[in-house]
C-alpha cells in the first residue's frame, strides 16, 4: 500500500471503484459539507473535494476535506497549481496528511478569468505534472523539492490526476497520460465522457501502452440535467464533446422528465464503460447534484460498495 486509503484498497482488492464529487460551499458553514457528505456516504469509495473550481472562491479544499473525513466519508483533496507556489503546496500536503487525508488529485486548475476574481495573479510555479512528481518525491523519498533533507514523518498520499481524452490533439492524450504515469500518478479520473467512440479509441491506446497496468483509470461521467445544460456544455465548455444523439435525446425529453432522461443516459454510459478493458472505476461528477448521486449509483448497479479494513 502506498497510502492505505480506502480508494487504494478497493482498487487493490480488484474492486470496481466509485468516486463522487463534493463542492465546498461559497461560505464557511461546515454543516453544508457534512450534509453533502451524508448524502454520498455509503454510495462512493471516496469523494473529490474540489479546490476553488471554475476559479470561484469557496471554502478551501483542505478544510472541507477534513470536515468530510470527520463526517465519515473518505475525501480526495483536489489541489490546483493556479493558487499556490511550491512552498504553500508542500506545506498544505504536510497539513493535509496530518489531518489524515490520504488521497490527492493534482490539477492545473481552471484559469482565473472564468471565476469571480478575474483580476487575480495566477501562480503556476509548478504545473500539474510537476506537482505529481513533487508529491511522489515527498511520499517515496521523504524529500521536499530542491532539498535532500529527509522529511520528518510520512506523507502517505494516493496520487491522482485528471486526463481529458476529448481535448486536442486527441492522438497525444494517451501519451500525455503516460507522462503522468512516469511522473508518479496512481489513479486517473477522466473528463466527463459522452462520446464513447473517442473514449474507446483513447482507452485502446492507453491499454496498448500498458498504462492500465500502471495506474487505475476511472471513467468520468456527469448526468445531464436538462436540454439547456446539454447544449451549453456541448457548445461552450472547452474539452467536452457531446454527440448529437445525446443532445437529441435530451431535447426530446419533456422538460419535467429531462433530469430522469439524463440519469438514464448516465446509467447506460456507466454500463457501457464497465465493459471497456482497462476501466477500473467510475468517477461521478454530479455537479451540485450530490443528493441524486446515490440514486444514480444504485440504478447503475454499483451497490453495495465494498467494505475493506
Amino acid at each position, binding site marked *: 500500500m502506498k497510502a492505505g486509503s480506502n480508494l487504494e484498497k478497493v482498487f487493490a482488492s480488484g474492486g470496481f471503484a466509485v468516486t463522487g464529487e463534493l463542492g465546498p460551499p461559497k461560505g464557511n458553514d461546515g454543516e453544508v459539507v457534512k450534509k453533502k457528505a451524508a448524502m454520498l456516504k455509503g454510495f462512493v469509495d471516496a469523494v473529490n473535494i474540489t479546490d476553488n473550481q471554475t476559479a470561484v472562491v469557496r471554502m478551501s479544499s483542505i478544510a472541507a476535506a477534513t470536515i468530510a473525513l470527520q463526517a465519515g466519508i473518505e475525501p480526495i483533496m483536489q489541489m490546483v497549481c493556479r493558487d499556490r507556489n511550491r512552498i504553500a503546496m508542500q506545506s498544505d500536503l504536510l497539513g493535509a496528511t496530518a489531518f489524515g487525508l490520504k488521497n490527492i488529485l493534482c490539477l492545473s486548475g481552471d484559469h482565473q478569468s*472564468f471565476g469571480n476574481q478575474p483580476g487575480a495573479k495566477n501562480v*503556476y510555479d509548478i*504545473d*500539474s505534472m510537476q506537482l505529481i512528481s513533487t508529491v511522489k518525491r515527498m511520499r517515496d523519498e521523504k524529500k521536499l523539492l530542491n532539498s535532500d533533507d529527509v522529511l520528518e514523518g510520512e506523507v502517505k498520499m494516493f496520487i491522482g490526476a485528471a486526463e481529458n481524452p476529448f481535448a486536442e490533439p486527441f492522438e497525444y492524450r494517451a501519451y500525455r497520460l503516460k507522462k503522468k504515469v512516469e511522473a508518479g500518478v496512481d489513479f486517473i479520473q477522466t*473528463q466527463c465522457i459522452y462520446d464513447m467512440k473517442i473514449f474507446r479509441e483513447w482507452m485502446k491506446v492507453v491499454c496498448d501502452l500498458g498504462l492500465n497496468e500502471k495506474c487505475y483509470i476511472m471513467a468520468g461521467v456527469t448526468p445531464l440535467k436538462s436540454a439547456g445544460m446539454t447544449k451549453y456544455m456541448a457548445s461552450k465548455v*472547452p*474539452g467536452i464533446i457531446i454527440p448529437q444523439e445525446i443532445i437529441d435525446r435530451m431535447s426530446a425529453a419533456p422538460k419535467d422528465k429531462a433530469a430522469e432522461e439524463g440519469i438514464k443516459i448516465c446509467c447506460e454510459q456507466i454500463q457501457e464503460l464497465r465493459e471497456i478493458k482497462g476501466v477500473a472505476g467510475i468517477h461521478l461528477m454530479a455537479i451540485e447534484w450530490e443528493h441524486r448521486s446515490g440514486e444514480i449509483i444504485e440504478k447503475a448497479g454499483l451497490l453495495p460498495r465494498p467494505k475493506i479494513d
Partner: protein
Amino acid sequence: MIIADRKPIDDIKNMLSPYKKILLVGCGTCVSVCMTGGEKEVGILASELRIISELEKKGWEISEDTIQRQCDREYIEPLSEKFEAADIIMSLACGVGIQYMAEVFPRHMVLPAINTTFYGTTVSEGEWQERCAGCGDCVLHLTMGICPVARCSKGLYNGPCGGTDKGKCEISSDLDCAWYMIYNRMKDLGKLDMIGTFIPPRSWKASLNGGPRKRVREDLKK
C-alpha cells in the same frame, strides 16, 4: 521589441494638470516601431494636449523632442537644457526609458504617457503579439521555438492542459493554444518523441522572483 500602449488621454490629462511647461519626450527605438511613442506619436499627443489646453484653459506650453534611445545616457544628457526649461517631463518610452531619464536627471520628475506591455513582434499591420517573458531560463530548445511561459495562459511546462479547444486556449477563442502549436510543430518536424520528456520544476531565481536582475561582465568593466 518592447511593445507598449498609450495611456488613455484622461489619465494623461490628470497627470499633467498641476503643471504648465510640459516637455514630451519620445523614443526612437521599440516604441517607435510599435507606433506608440516615436516622433510621430509625440506630435499627435502634443496636438491633443494643445487642443485640450485651448478648450479647457489649461495654459499648457507643450514642447516636444524625440531621442534615439531613452535607455542610453549619451542620448539623454543632451536634453539637459530642455529639462531645465520645463516644469514636468512626460516620456513616451517604455518603463526602462522613463526610469532612466529620471535617473539621469534626478531633480526632475518624469511621468509615463504609455503602459509598457510585453516583448513581442508585429504579426501583421496593426497587430502585435507577445513572444517572450524574459524569464531568464530559456526552454525554446525543448518546445520547438514556441515559448510556454509567455504564450500558454497557465505558463505550463508540460502541456497541453485539458482546456485546449480546437487548437485554441480555453480562455479565449482568439488565442492559439501554445502547447497545441508545440505539439504540431514537433509532429511536422518529426520530433514527436520530445513531447514525452518530462520538464521538471524550474528555479524562478533567474526570473523577477530572484529580485531585480543585473548582468555583469567583468571583462568589460573599467
